């Protein structure tokens, strides 16, 4: 990537050759993609003080021009015409004038052999192909996404403008309501179900600890992740799969644009920048649910509940919550993209990869949850 940019910089070094004498602007050699931009900017600056009402652009010595060059000349002409300067293009060799004509705004026209492997062999083969096909490729995609996410931070030129915000809204902000409502209900149910048990032991007040710890450490991040996987894991898989089926990804590739960076990286940033906040909201909503249940079934007033919360709320749980949400968010985007990219031809394939992406994303989230649980609480 860096090598490419260096080469590009070298190509761009070539200066446009021109000079202005009296009422005439002489252009030399060539005016192409790599010189056109600089030419327009410089020439406009120099012509700011142009007093005369005419400017002749002399192309006698221009050897080559492309569509960017033609556009640059036309742009200059339009800008100056607006200032009341009459611009005339003069002395263009035939090959140049034909290109000037071609690349000017057009008016619309008037009207094999197979054998069956043994049972054990096929188990081995399936295991092997699962490993090489899914596991390794998934890791490979993850590495690719990681590389381009970092690269994207330092290279703003080729970044897709506004896409991260767009994705943050789609993946995160739009999920707020459902996440809050579901977490509230789950918090309420957890507290409700445990209240009967706790009352047996006269340990009513521990309802607070139970709700807070269950929501912060476990349920908050998990509910958020499962809802995001359901909403966005499928949407991501469908989008990527559709792009693949309709050759959009091929088109990006042959335009020299990395599709991981163009399509997946904004989703990673959009998701990772919102899912921690969603998770915190889920935690708060769940605890609020618990508070309501405690008030109704155990006569613990919100005041007592909040006082007690001070004893049961640990920084560690808040941090765990956020770390978990980041891991789950990455898994959801990666899984969605992975199955989107693996789509087989046709619209039917898009549906299949969408379904499998959601199932796998939720499974991976739950597996990750148990692994993280072991790491954080042992």
């Amino acid at each position, binding site marked *: 990537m860096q*090598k490419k940019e260096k*080469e590009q910089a070298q190509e761009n070094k070539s200066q446009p050759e021109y000079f202005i004498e009296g009422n005439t602007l002489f252009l030399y050699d060539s005016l192409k993609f790599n010189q056109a931009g600089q030419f*327009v900017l410089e020439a406009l600056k120099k012509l700011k003080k142009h007093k005369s009402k005419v400017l002749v652009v002399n192309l006698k010595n221009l050897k080559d021009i492309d569509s*960017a060059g033609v*556009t640059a000349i036309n742009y200059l002409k339009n800008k100056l015409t607006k200032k009341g300067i009459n611009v005339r293009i003069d002395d263009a060799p035939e090959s140049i004038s034909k290109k000037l004509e071609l690349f000017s705004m057009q008016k619309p*026209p008037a009207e*094999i052999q197979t054998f069956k492997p043994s049972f054990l062999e096929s188990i081995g083969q399936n295991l092997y192909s699962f490993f090489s096909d899914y596991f390794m490729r998934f890791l490979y995609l993850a590495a690719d996404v990681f590389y381009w996410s970092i690269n994207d931070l330092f290279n703003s030129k*080729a970044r897709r403008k506004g896409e991260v915000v767009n994705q943050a809204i789609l993946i995160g902000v739009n999920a707020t309501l459902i996440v809050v409502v579901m977490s509230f209900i789950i918090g309420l149910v957890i507290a409700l179900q445990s209240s009967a048990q706790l009352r047996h032991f006269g340990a009513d007040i521990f309802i607070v600890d139970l709700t807070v710890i269950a929501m912060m450490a476990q349920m908050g991040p998990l509910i958020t992740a499962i809802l995001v996987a359901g909403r966005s894991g499928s949407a991501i898989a469908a989008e990527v799969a559709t792009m693949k089926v*309709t050759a959009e990804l*091929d088109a990006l590739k042959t335009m020299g644009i990395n599709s991981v960076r163009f399509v997946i990286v904004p989703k990673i940033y959009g998701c990772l920048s919102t899912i921690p906040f969603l998770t915190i909201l889920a935690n708060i909503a769940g605890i609020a649910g618990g508070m309501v249940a405690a008030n109704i079934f155990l006569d613990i007033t919100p005041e007592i509940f909040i006082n007690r919360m001070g004893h049961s709320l640990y920084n560690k749980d808040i941090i765990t919550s956020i770390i978990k949400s980041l891991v789950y968010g990455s898994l959801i985007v990666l899984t969605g993209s992975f199955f989107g990219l693996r789509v087989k031809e046709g619209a039917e394939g898009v549906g299949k990869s969408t379904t499998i992406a959601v199932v796998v994303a939720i499974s991976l989230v739950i597996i990750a949850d148990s692994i993280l649980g072991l790491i954080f609480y042992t």
Partner: protein
Amino acid sequence: MDLDKIIEVAGLTVDFDGKTVLSDVSFNAYNGQVTVILGGSGSGKTTVLRQILGLNPIRQGKINVLGKDISTLDESEQTKLYMKMGVFYQNGGLISSLTVGENVALPLEQHTNLPKEIIEEIVKMKLSLVYLQDTYKMYPSQLSGGMFKRAALARAIVMDPQMLLCDEPGAGLDPVSLASLDQLILDLKKLMKMSIIIVTHEVSSILRIADRVIFLENTKAIFEGTLSDALKSKKEPLINFFNKGKGQ
């Protein structure tokens, strides 16, 4: 012949899941010419283009593009080669989440340092070449089939590529649009010295634009040669093909 070969396909064999799509196909395309690839539906025309673009791995055979064996290129060399090519995909390949204007601007934004205003002007001009100046702010899904194709063509030529590959750009266009598309292709060839590889079914179009014809049938390239030789050929599929077209 003193023409440069821009594409050399030699002994290309492709099969998908055991089904042979191309067997031992060889042909050349030359600099500054319009090369037309012909053949019935499903005869492997798109597959040939995808192989030339390196979108499918080459299992058997060899393809040189602009003198480079494409199976040996690393990623940056391949990207460099792509910069010299414009590609029109059979189903358009426009990015559906971007407007037509943003689609056409994409290669310019990614690969040049041109200021925004100039990029916008180039995009509008290129869209006007395919008579789509009013679609700048529209999304691909809002375009009709013919407009969609023309927008994709505008994107393919936005960087003035040395080589243009088109997969059935004329299919479904009305005769007037088709004729103006052909004129554009001829202009690009003549004025920009663009080499053009084009898959098409339209006989009228072929007669207007082709320098060279490759005919695919039953997984093989059964004819390769100039347009006039193709018209004189005694091979049945060619005779049938051109006769059918004359009636239109």
